[in-house]
C-alpha cells in the first residue's frame, strides 16, 4: 500500500542546523511526498505548518526530525492531530546527532549529516509498516484504601472522602491516631511555642470518624493484594477485639478487675496497663480491647461487664476489598538504641530516648507530665541530649541519612524543660544543628532560654559514683570532656516501620536501600510509587515531621483523584490472546516476570496495566495464540532496513538497540555535549527482549557492521537477555559472521559518560575486525 509521507526537519534555533547540512539532507532522502524545514517546529507556528501540510497534502505518515522524543513526543502527537499519534515518528537529530557529533570548524559535519539521512530513512521505513492504534484508557474504581491510620493516613483519607471518594482506612493497632497521639507537645516554628499534639489531632480524628465516606478498619492488616486493570483486590485480616464495639460503653469496670499487668507500649513501656485496655482516652473506636496474647482468659472482665460486651469467641475476619487506588501511610519506627550499646540505654534507667522523654513530659504520660529520673523520681539537675543516634552513621546497623526531625524534637523537649524547670541544665551534643527555614528561629529561642550546645558526638555513657558520665570531645574548644549528668536522652533515628516493609512487599512496591517506600522520581514525582495507582504519604516514604506528612497525604489524595477523574492512559503495545487458539497450557502465565498473565474465567487474562509488551510470552506459546499489538517486530525490521539504506563501501554503520533507560542515557550524552562516533545509530525498543536473533542476523547480513545492545540491569528481563546473547552469538557464528560484532552492555541513566566510552570502544573494535577481515 502506498503511503503519503511527510518529513519535517527542525533547525532547533541552530542547535541542529549549525551542524547538519539541512539542504543536503533534503536532497538525500528520496521518495517522500513532503519535505519541510522550520526554525522551531515545536512552536505554535510549527504546529500550523505541520497541520496544514497534513490536511492539504493528505499525509498519512509523518516524520518529525527534531529533538529527542523524551522532550517533545507528546507535543508533536498533539500537532499531528487528527492523524493517529502512532503514525507520527520522531527522529532524534539533536541529542543523537548534532549534539554528539558537532565540530569546531565552521563547515557542516558531513558524517553526521549522512547519519541524519540514515535515521530519517529508518523512520520512514518504520512508519510504512506502522498501523493506527489507539491508547487504552482505563477507568479506575471510585474508591481507595489508605493503609495506616496515623496523621498521614487520616489526612489522606479525609481529603479523599471530602472529594466524594469512598475510603477504607486500614489500621493495624486497635486505634487510629498513630505516633502523633502520644507525642505530647508538638513544635511550631511560627509561634515559637509548643502546642498540645492531642488537641491538634483530636478534631482531625473526629472528622475522620464522622465522615460517611470513610470506613475505619482497626486491628486490621493487609494480607494480600492483586492488581487487576484499574483496580486492586485486597484481602484484609481484621483481628478480634473480644469486646463488642456496639455494646461497650467504655465504663472501665473491666479494667478494675483485670489482674494482668503488662508494659504499656503507648507509654513506651514506662508504665503498666491491663490485658483489657484502651490505648488513650480519646482513641477511636472509643471502646476497650483485649490484648489476647497477654490475657489468661480468667473471665473476670466478662463477668463484670454490665453490657455483656465481652466475648472470647470472636474470630479473625477476612475482608475482601476492591479499590481503585492505595495510599501507603504505614509510618516509621525508631532506631533500637541497643544497637549503640556504648550509650548504655539498657544498662542505665536514666538513659532514655526522646520519645520516652516526650511521654514523661506528657500530662497524660506515666508521670503526669512531671520531669523525673526514672531511677529515683528526682528532677534531674542536668540533662544531656545526644543527637544522631543511628542517623548519619555508616557503620553496621546505622543509617546513612539524616532523620530530619530530631534537631527540632530535641530543641522542643529542651525548651519545655527549660520553661517548667529553669534550674535544670540542658546540654545538647550535636554534630550539626539542622533547623531549616523558620525552625532556625526556634533554635535561637532555645539558645536564649539557656539551652547549652556542645558540638561533638559523644563516644560513650558510663556510670561513676551514681552519676551518668557522658564522654565527648568539645570540638570547638578541642577539649575532651566528661559531663556528669542525671539523665541522658538519645535522639534515635527514624526508620521504616515493619508494616511499611510488609506492605511494600505485598503491593510489590519498590523500596529504597534504607527500606522506605521508593518514589520513581523523588524530585519530580513525589507521592508516586513504581506501581501505578499506589501512592505514599508520611514517614513510610522518608523521615519527616507532621506538617510535611499532612502535605504529602493531601498531595497523594489529589493524585488518587486525578486517576479517578482522568483514567489511566496506557501505551497500547501489550499482549493479546486469541482464545480460539489458546488451549490454556499456561506457559505464558509461568514465563511472565511482570505477573501480567493469569487465568480468569477459563481464559488467559492479560492485565493491561501490568503488561510491558516485552514479548516473552509469544516465544513460549505453542499455539501462536499470543500477539503484541502494534506489530513491533515488523517495525524493528523496517527500521534496520532504513538505517542500512544506501550504505557506501568503506562506510561503517553500527546499530545500537537501547531500552528506555539506555535511550535516556544516550540523550544525556548529547545534553552534556560528549561525543561518540557517527557510525552509531540508535534504535529505541520497549525491551531489548523484543530484538530477535533474526533481526540481528538480518542486520549483520545486510550491511550492519556491529550490533550494540544496551539494557538496564534493574529491568526484570535483564537476566533473560544476558543469557540470550550467548545463544545469539552462536547463531551468528553459524551464519559465518564474527560473533564479536555483537556486544551487550549494562546501561544506567547517570552513567552516560560510560555509555559514550563504550560506543567509542565498540566502534574501534569493529574497525579492528573490519581490518582483519580485509
Amino acid at each position, binding site marked *: 500500500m502506498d503511503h503519503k509521507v511527510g518529513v519535517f526537519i527542525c533547525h532547533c534555533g541552530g542547535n541542529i542546523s549549525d551542524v547538519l547540512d539541512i539542504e543536503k539532507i533534503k536532497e538525500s532522502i528520496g521518495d517522500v511526498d513532503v519535505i519541510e524545514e522550520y526554525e522551531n517546529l515545536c512552536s505554535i507556528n510549527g504546529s500550523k505548518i505541520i497541520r496544514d501540510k497534513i490536511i492539504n497534502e493528505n499525509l498519512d505518515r509523518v516524520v518529525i526530525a527534531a529533538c529527542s522524543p523524551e522532550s517533545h513526543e507528546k507535543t508533536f502527537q498533539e500537532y499531528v492531530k487528527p492523524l493517529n499519534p502512532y503514525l507520527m515518528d520522531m527522529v532524534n537529530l539533536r541529542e543523537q546527532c548534532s549534539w554528539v557529533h558537532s565540530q569546531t570548524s565552521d563547515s557542516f559535519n558531513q558524517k553526521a549529516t549522512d547519519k541524519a539521512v540514515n535515521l530519517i530513512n529508518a523512520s520512514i521505513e518504520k512508519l510504512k509498516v506502522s498501523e493506527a492504534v489507539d491508547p487504552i484508557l482505563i477507568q479506575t474504581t471510585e474508591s481507595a484504601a489508605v493503609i495506616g491510620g496515623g496523621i498521614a493516613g487520616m489526612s489522606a483519607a479525609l481529603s479523599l472522602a471530602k472529594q466524594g471518594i469512598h475510603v477504607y482506612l486500614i489500621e493495624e493497632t486497635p486505634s487510629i491516631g498513630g505516633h502523633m497521639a502520644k507525642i505530647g507537645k508538638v513544635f511550631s516554628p511560627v509561634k515559637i511555642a509548643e502546642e498540645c499534639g492531642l488537641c491538634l489531632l483530636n478534631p482531625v480524628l473526629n472528622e475522620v470518624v464522622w465522615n460517611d465516606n470513610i470506613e475505619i478498619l482497626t486491628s486490621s492488616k493487609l494480607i494480600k493484594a492483586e492488581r487487576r486493570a484499574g483496580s486492586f483486590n485486597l484481602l484484609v485480616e481484621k483481628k478480634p477485639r473480644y469486646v463488642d464495639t456496639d455494646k461497650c460503653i467504655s465504663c472501665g469496670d473491666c479494667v478494675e478487675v483485670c489482674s494482668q499487668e503488662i508494659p504499656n507500649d503507648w507509654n513506651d513501656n514506662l508504665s503498666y496497663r491491663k490485658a483489657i485496655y484502651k490505648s488513650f482516652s480519646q482513641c477511636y473506636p472509643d471502646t476497650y480491647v483485649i490484648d489476647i496474647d497477654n490475657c489468661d482468659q480468667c473471665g473476670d472482665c466478662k463477668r463484670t461487664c454490665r453490657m455483656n460486651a465481652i466475648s472470647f469467641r470472636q474470630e479473625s475476619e477476612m475482608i475482601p476489598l476492591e479499590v481503585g487506588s492505595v495510599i501507603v501511610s504505614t509510618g516509621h519506627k525508631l532506631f533500637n538504641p541497643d544497637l549503640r*550499646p556504648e550509650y548504655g540505654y539498657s544498662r542505665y534507667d536514666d538513659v532514655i530516648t526522646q520519645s520516652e522523654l516526650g511521654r514523661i513530659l506528657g500530662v497524660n504520660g506515666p508521670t503526669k507530665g512531671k520531669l523525673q529520673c526514672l531511677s529515683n523520681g528526682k528532677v534531674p539537675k542536668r540533662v544531656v541530649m545526644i543527637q544522631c543516634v543511628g542517623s548519619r552513621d555508616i557503620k*553496621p*546497623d546505622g543509617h546513612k541519612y539524616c532523620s530530619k526531625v530530631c534537631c527540632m524534637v530535641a530543641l522542643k523537649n529542651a525548651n519545655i524543660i527549660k520553661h517548667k524547670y529553669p534550674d535544670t541544665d540542658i546540654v545538647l551534643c550535636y554534630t550539626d544543628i539542622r533547623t531549616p527555614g523558620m525552625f532556625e528561629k526556634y533554635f535561637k529561642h532555645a539558645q536564649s532560654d539557656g539551652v547549652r550546645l556542645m558540638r561533638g558526638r559523644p563516644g560513650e555513657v558510663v*556510670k561513676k559514683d551514681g552519676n551518668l558520665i557522658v564522654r565527648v570531645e568539645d570540638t570547638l574548644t578541642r577539649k575532651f570532656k566528661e559531663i556528669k549528668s542525671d539523665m541522658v536522652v538519645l535522639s534515635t533515628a527514624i526508620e521504616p516501620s515493619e508494616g511499611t516493609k510488609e506492605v511494600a512487599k505485598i503491593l510489590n512496591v519498590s523500596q529504597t536501600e534504607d527500606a522506605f517506600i521508593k518514589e520513581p522520581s523523588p524530585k519530580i514525582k513525589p507521592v508516586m510509587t513504581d506501581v501505578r495507582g499506589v501512592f505514599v504519604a508520611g514517614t513510610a516514604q522518608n523521615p519527616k515531621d507532621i506538617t510535611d506528612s499532612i502535605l504529602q497525604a493531601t498531595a497523594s489524595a489529589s493524585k488518587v483523584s486525578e486517576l479517578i477523574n482522568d483514567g489511566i492512559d496506557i501505551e497500547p503495545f501489550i499482549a493479546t490472546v486469541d482464545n480460539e487458539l489458546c488451549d490454556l497450557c499456561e506457559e505464558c502465565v509461568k514465563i511472565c516476570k511482570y505477573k501480567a498473565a493469569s487465568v480468569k474465567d477459563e481464559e488467559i487474562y492479560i492485565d493491561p496495566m501490568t503488561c510491558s509488551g516485552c514479548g516473552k510470552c509469544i516465544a513460549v506459546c505453542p499455539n501462536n495464540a499470543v500477539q503484541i499489538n502494534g506489530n513491533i517486530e515488523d517495525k524493528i525490521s523496517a527500521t534496520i532496513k532504513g538505517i542500512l539504506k544506501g550504505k557506501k563501501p568503506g562506510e561503517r554503520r553500527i546499530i545500537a538497540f537501547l531500552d528506555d533507560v539506555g535511550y535516556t542515557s544516550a540523550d544525556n550524552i548529547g545534553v552534556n555535549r560528549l561525543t561518540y562516533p557517527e557510525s552509531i545509530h540508535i534504535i529505541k525498543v520497549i525491551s531489548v527482549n523484543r530484538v530477535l536473533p533474526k533481526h540481528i542476523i538480518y542486520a549483520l547480513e545486510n550491511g550492519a557492521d556491529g550490533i550494540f545492545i544496551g539494557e538496564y540491569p534493574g529491568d526484570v528481563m535483564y537476566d533473560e537477555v544476558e543469557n540470550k546473547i550467548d545463544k545469539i552469538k552462536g547463531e551468528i557464528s553459524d551464519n559465518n559472521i564474527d560473533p564479536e560484532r555483537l556486544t551487550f552492555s549494562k546501561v544506567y541513566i547517570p552513567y552516560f559518560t560510560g555509555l559514550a566510552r563504550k560506543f567509542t570502544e565498540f566502534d574501534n573494535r569493529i574497525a579492528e575486525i573490519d581490518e582483519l577481515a580485509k
Partner: protein
Amino acid sequence: MKNVPDKNILLFKSCLVSVEYPGIESSTKYVFDKIGVDYHVDRAQTCCTGLGHYSDVFDQFSTTVNGARHFALANKLNRPNMVMMCATCYAINKKVANILNNNEEVRDEVNQVFDDCGYDWMKFNKGDLDSRENIFHIIDIFYSKRKEIAKNIKYDFSDFNIATHHGCHYCKVHYGDTIEGIRNPHIIDDVVNACGVETIGWYDFKRTTCGSGFSQRFVHKKHSLTVTLDKLKSLKENKTNILIHLCPNCHVQFDRYQTYVGDKIGEEFNIVHLNIAQFLALAMGADPYDVVGIQTHTVPVEPILKDLKPLSKDNKDEIIEKVSYKVDLDESEDFNMEADTVKVEVNETN
C-alpha cells in the same frame, strides 16, 4: 553467622604466645583435640610482623610480602584455613589478604619480589586465600563449637566473677567479619557461658585497649599504664577474680604489669589473667602445669585452682541443654536475619 571451618586448619603460631605464654598454644591444641578440630602447626611458619609492624618499623609492603609467603605455605600444606591465637596476627593477615586480593598493583609487585628470589611457589593469585573465608581467630572456632565445649566441661567456675577483655585487633579492625559485637564485644562471654558460667558482662572501659599500644608500653610507659590502670580499677569495682583474654599482647600488659601499677598507686588487684584457650582447658580438666602452662604467669593462678570444684552431672546436663538451646536459637535467628535484611555493606578495600 559466617561459616567457621573445623578442618584443614593451619594453627598460626604467635611470637608472644611462643615466648611469653606458650601454655596458650598447648591449651589450644588440648581444646581442639577435645572438640574435634583438625589442625596442624608448621615449623616453616614464621611470624606475622605484628609487633614490628605496629611499632612502625615494618612498612605495609614488607608485611604484605611476608604474609603472602604464609598464604602460599597454607595452600601448599592444603591447610588454607588459617587460625590465629593472637588478635594482631588476625588483623595483620586479614589486611594482607585484602590487599593481595584487591590491589592488583601491589600484588604484582609482591609477585615480582618472589620472582626475583626464585620463590615461584610463593606467588599469590587473586582469590588464593580470602580474608573472610579463610582467616579466623581461635575464638571463632570455640564459638562455633559451643555445644561440644559444653559436653567436655569438668570443672565449675561459676563461683568466680569472670570478666572478659576483647582487646582491639580482633573486633575493631575488620569489624565487618567480627562475630558477636563490635561496640559491645561479647564473643568471649558467650564462649564462657558455654561452660555454664555467667560473666559480669559490661563494665566501664570494657572495649578499651589494654594500653600496650605496641610502642607505647616501651617509650611512653606512664601513658600506656594509665590506660591499663583505668581498666583495672573498673574491673576491681566489679569485683573481678578472673579476666579472660584472646590476645597475648593484652595478656602481657595485664599479667606482667598488674602488680607494678598496683604498687605505684598502693592498691592490690588480685585479678588472674587467662587466655580463653587456657580457661577452656582448665575447665575441661587439663593439667595446669603440663598443658595450661600457668608457671609462666606473673600473677599466680594457683589461688583460683584451689577453689575449683568438679562439675556435678546434673549441672553438666543442664548446661549442655541450655547451650544447645541458645546455639540453635542463634542459628535460627541468623537464618531469619539473612532472609530479611539487606546485607550491611562494609566499605573496606584492604
